[in-house]
């Protein structure tokens, strides 16, 4: 028996549900030393900004229990250099490519999205976990209206589906999800890293040069599964890319059952550069072993405890 790994919901259609999380796969070429990147459902690249960015000083990372904090500062070559140097390689390799974009203002996001028009990009993911310089540095993703403004601007100029990447730091993530879908988002990526901090107890020194950083890894997985479930319950027609602490095939299945159409592996690739390919093959084997004909059939099949057979 061969199982069908293909998934499709709304405007999101992938050969298999395993994608990479932005910022965890660089430009794709680094991991091609280990696996064939075209075997992944989609490569989501590191966030692109209007101009090149060198990012923050070090230390940029600290390991925490079952996770890690990072504060990189969106180091990237800028959208123009990426279009000229990195995208052709991904497209020639046959990779489905999702360009993550970031900015400090609505205008920044729209500028980058406009540069991607007519390129070989298959979709755009909007990284809304950026400070909005025009609104006292308030992170877009925390505010439904600011998030909707960005998505509306991007969706207006984009010629491919637009995914909005949201944050569990928002007080009401379902409200943000509704706002961005109304503004034109074709899908949602849930969730970005969770804001955190670590302090050296002896020296009192804050571990990251930036002070605060994004927590990723298995430590945040239950939060991500909860958010996917909440948003899927509220907006069942909207395709969701579940993201947060995926390490095993069982984690992937959890996200699918919570309502994700695709599942991103992020920090998992740091630990195991083969992870995306291993999870793709492992998912096929798992589905077959448990008698499921397709990955798509599992989406949103979580049942309340008392109703479980």
């Amino acid at each position: 028996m061969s199982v069908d790994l293909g998934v499709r919901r709304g405007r999101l259609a992938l050969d298999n549900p395993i994608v990479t999380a932005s910022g965890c796969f660089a430009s794709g070429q680094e991991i091609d030393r280990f696996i064939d990147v075209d075997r992944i459902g989609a490569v989501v690249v590191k966030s692109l900004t209007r101009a090149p960015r060198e990012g923050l000083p070090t230390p940029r990372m600290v390991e925490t229990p079952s996770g890690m904090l990072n504060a990189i500062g969106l180091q990237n070559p800028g959208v123009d250099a990426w279009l000229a140097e990195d995208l052709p390689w991904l497209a020639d390799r046959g990779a489905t490519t999702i360009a993550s974009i970031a900015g400090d203002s609505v205008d920044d996001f729209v500028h980058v999205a406009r540069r991607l028009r007519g390129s070989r990009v298959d979709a755009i993911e909007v990284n809304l976990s950026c400070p909005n310089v025009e609104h006292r540095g308030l992170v877009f993703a925390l505010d439904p209206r600011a998030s909707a403004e960005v998505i509306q601007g991007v969706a207006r100029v984009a010629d491919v589906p637009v995914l909005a990447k949201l944050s569990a730091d928002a007080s009401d993530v379902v409200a943000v999800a509704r706002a961005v879908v109304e503004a034109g988002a074709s899908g949602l990526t849930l969730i970005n890293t969770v804001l955190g901090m670590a302090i050296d107890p002896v020296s009192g020194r804050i571990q990251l040069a930036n002070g605060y950083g994004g927590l990723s890894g298995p430590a945040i997985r239950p939060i991500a599964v909860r958010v996917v479930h909440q948003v899927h319950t509220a907006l069942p027609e909207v395709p969701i890319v579940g993201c947060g602490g995926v390490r095993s095939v069982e984690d992937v299945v959890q996200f699918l059952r919570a309502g994700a159409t695709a599942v991103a592996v992020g920090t998992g690739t740091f630990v195991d550069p083969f992870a995306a390919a291993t999870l793709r093959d492992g998912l096929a084997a798992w589905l077959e072993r448990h008698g499921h004909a397709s990955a798509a059939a599992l989406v949103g099949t979580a049942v309340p405890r008392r109703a479980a057979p």
Partner: protein
Amino acid sequence: MSGRLRAGQVEGRTDRDGPLRVGAEVVARRRTGPYAVLTLAAGPVAQRARPGQFVEVAVDAPGTLLRRPLSVARAALTGSGVGTIDLVVGAEGAGSAWLGGVAAHDVIDLIGPLGRPFPLPVRPASCMLVGGGYGAAPMHYLAEVLAAAGHRVDLIVGAATEEQLLRSMEAKRAATSLQFTTDDGSAGARGRVTDVMAAVATRGSTDVVYACGPNAMLAAVSGVAASLGLPVRVSIEERMACGVGVCFTCVVPVRGRDGVVHHRRSCIDGPVLDGARVDWDAMGLASAAGGASGAATAPSGGDVVGDGDTGDLPGAAPGGAA
């Protein structure tokens, strides 16, 4: 890890150069001072490794997630396609404690070799090798490789105390001269490795300096090398999550040929970099010769080590291992 590796199991692109994932069996384990030295049957990784490269080792300590980057301290081929590598494990942290506690026949999941190795001289050269703490391990390995290729090796090994001095019989044999320094004078000369560099350079007519150790030491060594007019290659250490070029946590500020400082990933553009191009000031480290201004006068050494490109690297060029 999805699935444990068997001893000798190899995953990855065996058909081309580059890093592989292997199940490496522990064949020997010994203690030297506060360090543990592991000898692992690393198969093709031993064959592919060069001095200056590192491996990423999976650890199984509670609550830890990330692999640990460790310099290859020695590679020995025991047959075609088989061989061992040595890793020197430091004394601090949960990962090191776990690694220090592994037993013979345990299988370690490692990925490597990673990073750019030390560039070797392109003509017969006199090489000064400077190692600090357990950073001396790759210097021992480099000493053997350089001596085997017919180069002169003057080795300087420093540590805080005699107990922390890393010693190697193989390196001692390979080196023309060996000088120890300790901060407290308990062995060798009292003081820092940089205190003896000028005398060693005069005695050995040094052409090029190689160094590995704590970043503060590398900054100081780069400064002294610049003041002596010597090219210097350093193996740098920065907190690293992935080791394979995708997380961007391990960056180092490096001045490019354009004079502009860029953040380079020490895992993929390094860990070996031109010490004269590293912006030690930006890292909060003083370079004895005046940091970037002093470094600007230091020679790149491209005529000696044949890679004037170190420190002026392409943005994303994950090349082969060696």
